């Protein structure tokens, strides 16, 4: 049915990943905020994870499009 779901998944996780990565970097010096998460900058880590996942999904989606285009 029409759409390739990898594209919206890739887009959404790239956007969310970017958002949390940037937020993690901005708040990196905020010791009090990360006391809860055992002093792990969890925003940065999960943000990067989502960026990688979103990127892979986008890549797979573009590869599929190229294949279909040929």
């Amino acid at each position, binding site marked *: 049915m029409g759409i390739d779901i990898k594209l919206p998944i890739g887009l959404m996780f790239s956007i969310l990943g970017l958002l949390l990565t940037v937020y993690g970097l901005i708040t990196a010096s905020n010791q009090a905020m990360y006391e809860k998460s055992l002093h792990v900058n*969890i925003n940065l*880590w999960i943000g990067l994870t989502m960026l990688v996942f979103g990127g892979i999904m986008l890549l797979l989606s573009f590869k599929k499009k190229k294949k279909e285009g040929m």
Partner: protein
Amino acid sequence: MTNSFNLEWIDYTVMIIYFMFVLGIGWALKKYMKDAKAFLEAGRSMPAWVAGLAFISTNLGALEVMGMTGSGLKYGMLTTHFYWVGAIPAMVFLALFMMPFYYGSKARSVPEYLKLRYDEKTRGLNAILFAVMTILASGISMYALAILMEKVLGWNFHMSLVLSAAVVLGYTYLGGLSSAIYNEVLQFFIIVLGLLPVVFLSLKDVGGWSGLQDQLAPIATAKGFAADTWTTTWKYTGTAAANPMGVEWYSIFAGLGFVLSFGYWCTNFLIVQRAMSAHSTVAARNTPLIGALPKMFVPFLIIVPGIIALVLMNNPATGFKLPLNEAGQPIYDYTIIMLLKQYLPAGVLGLGITALLASFMSGMAGNVSAFNTVWTYDIYQSYIRPVTGNKADDEKHYLGVGRLATIFGVIVSIAAAYLASLFGNIMDFLQTIFSMINAPLFAVIFLGMFWKRTTGHAAFTGLLAGFLVALLHHGLTFPAGADTLVKGGWIAHVHQYPVEMAQNFWTAIYACATSATVAVVLSLITKQKKSDIELKGLVYSLTPKVHEEVVPWYKRSTTLAILVLTIATVLTILFW
């Protein structure tokens, strides 16, 4: 509760981005919704991996996530019996032995399969029961979500109810089953990534798996169990008294591993519908198997954090407490959200709450999309307006009816949610009734697929007899400490079970056995009205075997099934 979370702009931003994408997917699919087949059956065009992830995602609803984390706290790794023995074998069986008939028969729903295989009355009974139960179930999960958001986040109950229902209605109305399925795939990933931070941080906090084992030992001993009870699965199931679940190995094996799980996974249209949407017979068979792969690892995502919560609860220094109900008992279903609160700073916290919202939506959209199909094809088309023969006109008409049924389903769900807020026991009640209906249904569908002699009268009577015996068993027995008649014993107190779960298992076992016996006996004495030609594609012995040679070996269902069963066995041994 006054100590609610303070969500920040970043948390709301994450949620809003998620909402935009789910609605956007519905919007993008709108232009393909030209006929009833596209809207209600997703045009039978889904790739196996999409259908497979949707299959597991729709099962990973809010009640599952909240309930299983709470069970992890109460029973420890024993809760994995709902997965490794209580789901995987049934999913493999559905894939290999039942999907060829569900898919190959061209039936558009499970009730319609019953119509093709048996007769109209068997279909009617199943369709009506399914429609009512599905919509009630959707209302109850909506209630559970709204009350959680109210108690913990301080959100307005009515607002979260209407808002979450409106989003689900939005994307299922726009894109039908395709939209529900595609969104379930997206929701699956957000549930996993959203809960991952809690799993990681809580494990780190207790010093990993071995640290968890060490800290659980004194807690288990204090409760009168062996030190490693919470981190093992089968080890202490020799007697019911040796484990917190209060059940012994054979009732787990027969009740959960066989009757309850086969009754749920192999007959519930909500689940089977995902596999029916696949683009080919091989893809339909692979759907439950692809779903089984992540399913086996779900316990690490939701049960393990629940077990860690038990350690936190017993260590005052952590400050971790579960909210209490009116009776002063901890509300175990709130374990997951209290863990989010314990460990997550702004940002990932929004992501974690989005994961809970996503799990709610995947479950509810599943209910709604199964309801509108059964309503349109099995009730409306059968009893109210049969097909006229003008195909183009019919398709258009039923598309409209499917759309209206979607709106109607959501409205009734909201009403059911308010009903649930009035009667606290309705959730227990519904789950009890569900297991009474599913177990006989499995017996009847199984006999229908594998014994061509089974007749329509026998199937119908078997279904009813199984349900009545289940009711009777529930009325005569009760679990220890039962405080309401919903839990059983409303006729007389003949037998007492140590825990409610044992009672549920045995209700299902009796129901399934009765249903099978009645159906077999009646099949032998009633006349088979269906000819062998009519039963072709519906019964094992009259259907040509599926030939998988056309696909490469690594894409074959048998290969996948062996892989799934091997991993499940390894996990069982590792956590024995």
